[in-house]
C-alpha cells in the first residue's frame, strides 16, 4: 500500500484497465471475432440452413414421400452398399500401408507416402475418367471385358472403384504419422516376450491406434457416401440401378422437383453433421490417441 502511494500513479493511467502488451484492445478483438463469425455464418451456416428449409418447404408429407419413394430407397441402398465395400477395403489398405511405413525403414518410403496421397490432388472427374479409359467400351480392357460379359463402367463395380479411388488416402494418412510417432518399441517388446506377429498386431498395435483408425474411417465413410463427381462419370445414371444418393439429388433437382431433391440432400447433410459431431468428440476426448492427426 505504502509503495503504491509513494509511486504516485497518475489517475488516468491507474484508471485504464491493464492490458497485456501482446493482446489486442477489446474493440479490436471483438471486431475480429465479429467479422470471422459473420463470414462463417454467411458462407457455411447459411447454406446448411437452406438445405433443411428447402427440404421442408412443401411440408412434412412431401418430405417423407420423397424419402420412401422406390428410386430414393434404391439410391440409399446403393450408397450404403458402396460405402460398405469401399471403406473396409481402404481400412485394410491403410493398416497395411501404415504397418509397412511406420514399423520399418526402407528405401523409397517418402515416395510411397507421396503416392498414397496422390488421389487427393486429382480432380474427382478425372478419378472417374481413368476407369472409363481403362474399362469403358473404348478403353484398354473394354473389348476383353465385353467378350466375357463383365460390366464395370456404368455399373456398380465402377462406382465402387471410383469411390475407393477418391477415399483411398483417408485411413492411411491418419495412421501413418501416429504410428511413426509411436515407433515399434511396444511391438518389439511383445515379440521378444514370445507373442506372434498377429497377436502383437491385434493386442498391441490396434489398441494403440484405435481412435485414429476410427477417425480415418469416419472421414472415409463421409466422403464415400457423399462423392458425386467421380461417381457421376462412371455411373451411367440409371435410376434404381446405378444411382447413388448424390446422383439422385442431382436428377431430382434437374427435374425441378426441388423439395424432393432437398429432402434427399437433407439426409446427406445430416450425415455430415453426425460425422462432424463424432469427429469433434474424438478430437476433444481422445486428442492423445490422435496426436499426429492435428493440422492436416
Amino acid at each position, binding site marked *: 500500500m505504502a509503495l503504491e502511494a509513494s509511486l504516485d500513479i497518475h489517475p488516468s493511467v491507474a484508471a485504464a484497465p491493464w492490458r497485456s*502488451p*501482446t493482446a*489486442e484492445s477489446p474493440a479490436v*478483438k471483438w471486431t*475480429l471475432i465479429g467479422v*470471422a*463469425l459473420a*463470414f*462463417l455464418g454467411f458462407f*457455411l*451456416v*447459411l*447454406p446448411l440452413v*437452406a*438445405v433443411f428449409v*428447402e427440404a421442408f418447404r412443401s411440408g412434412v408429407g412431401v418430405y417423407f414421400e420423397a424419402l420412401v419413394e422406390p428410386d430414393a430407397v434404391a439410391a440409399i441402398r446403393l450408397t450404403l452398399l458402396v460405402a460398405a465395400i469401399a471403406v473396409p*477395403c481402404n481400412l*485394410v*489398405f491403410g493398416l*497395411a500401408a501404415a*504397418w*509397412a511405413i511406420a*514399423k*520399418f*525403414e*526402407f528405401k523409397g518410403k517418402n515416395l510411397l507416402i507421396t503416392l498414397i496421397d*496422390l488421389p487427393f490432388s*486429382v*480432380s*474427382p*472427374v*478425372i478419378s472417374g475418367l*481413368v*476407369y472409363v*479409359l481403362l474399362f469403358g467400351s*473404348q478403353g*484398354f480392357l473394354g473389348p476383353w471385358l465385353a467378350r466375357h460379359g463383365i460390366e464395370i463402367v456404368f455399373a456398380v463395380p465402377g462406382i465402387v472403384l471410383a469411390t475407393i*479411388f477418391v477415399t483411398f488416402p483417408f485411413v492411411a494418412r491418419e495412421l501413418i504419422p501416429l504410428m511413426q510417432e509411436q515407433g*515399434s518399441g511396444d*511391438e518389439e517388446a511383445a*515379440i521378444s516376450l514370445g507373442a506372434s506377429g498377429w497377436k*502383437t*498386431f491385434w493386442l498391441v498395435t490396434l489398441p494403440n491406434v484405435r481412435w485414429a483408425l476410427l477417425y480415418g474411417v469416419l*472421414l472415409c465413410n*463421409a466422403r464415400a*457416401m*457423399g462423392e*458425386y*463427381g467421380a461417381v*457421376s*462419370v462412371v455411373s451411367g445414371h440409371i435410376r434404381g440401378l446405378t444411382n447413388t444418393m*448424390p446422383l439422385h*439429388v442431382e436428377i431430382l433437382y434437374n427435374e425441378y422437383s426441388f423439395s424432393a431433391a432437398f429432402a434427399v*440432400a437433407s439426409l446427406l*447433410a445430416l450425415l455430415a453433421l453426425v460425422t*462432424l459431431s463424432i*469427429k*469433434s468428440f474424438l478430437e*476433444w476426448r481422445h486428442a492423445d490417441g490422435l496426436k499426429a492427426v492435428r*493440422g492436416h
Partner: protein
Amino acid sequence: MPAAVLPRLKQQSVVPGFGPALGFTLFYLSIVVLIPLGALALRAAGLGWSDFWQLATDPRTLAALRLSFLASLGAASINVVFGLLLAWVLVRYDFPGRRLVDAVIDLPFALPTAVAGIALTSLYAPNGWVGQVLTPLGFKVAYTPLGVIVALTFVSLPFVVRTVQPVLQDLDRDVEEAAATLGATRRHTFLRVVLPALLPALLTGYALALARAVGEYGSVIFIAGNIPYVSEIAPLLIVIRLEEFNYAAATAVAALMLGVSFTMLLIINLIQAWSRRRFGHGA
C-alpha cells in the same frame, strides 16, 4: 531370393510382416491408383504431340481452363484472408461457442459437394435469400462466373484455417513479448514478427485450397449455369467431351489438369521442405 534382396532394401527388424504389408500396399496402390492413372497418361501420349496441342489449345478448352484457374485463384485469395482471421480468432481468443465454431469449419469436408451446390444455388438464385438482396444492387451471382467463385470459396474454406491453426498454436509468445518490450506497436509486431512466421503455412494452405478448387466439380455445376466460354469449368468440359464419346478431347483436358495438379503438389512439398529448414517445422 527375398532373403538376399530385402536386407539391402530395408534395415533389420524383429517386427514381422514387412513383406506382406508392403506387398499388399504396393499391389493395392497399383490396382486402384497407379495403373488407372497410367492408362490416362498412355492415352494422352497416344494422341501424339500435334493432336494433343490442337485439343489443348481449342478456344473452348482454353476458356474453361482460364475460368477454372482464375476463379480458383479468387476463391483461394478470399480464403487466405479469412482463413488467417479465423485461425487467429480460434487460437488467440476465447469466446462463447468457440468449440462449435471450430467444428463447423470442417463442414465443407463433410458436406457432399452436390448438396453444397444445390444449397448455394438456392441461396444465390435471383429469388433466393441472398440473390433477392444482391440482384437489385446489380450483382448477379448464380449462373455467372461470380457463382463459380462463391462455390469454390465454400469448398476450399477449411484448408488455410487448418494449416495456419496448428502453427499459430505452437508459435512462441516470447517473441511477441520481446517485440513489445522493444517498443513495437501491436500492428507492427503482427506484420513483422507473427506474419513472417505464418507465411509458409499460409502459402501451403493457399496452394492446397487452389489445388482443391481447380478440380472441384459437384458444387460448381449447379450454380455456374455452365454457359460455354463464360461459366463452364474445365472438369465439366471433361464430362461433356466424355458424353460426346470424344475420349481424345476428354483425355487431353484431363492430362493438362493433372499436369498442373502434380506441379502444385510439388510446389506444396517444396514450401514444406523450405519451411522445415527455415523454421524447424512443417507448414
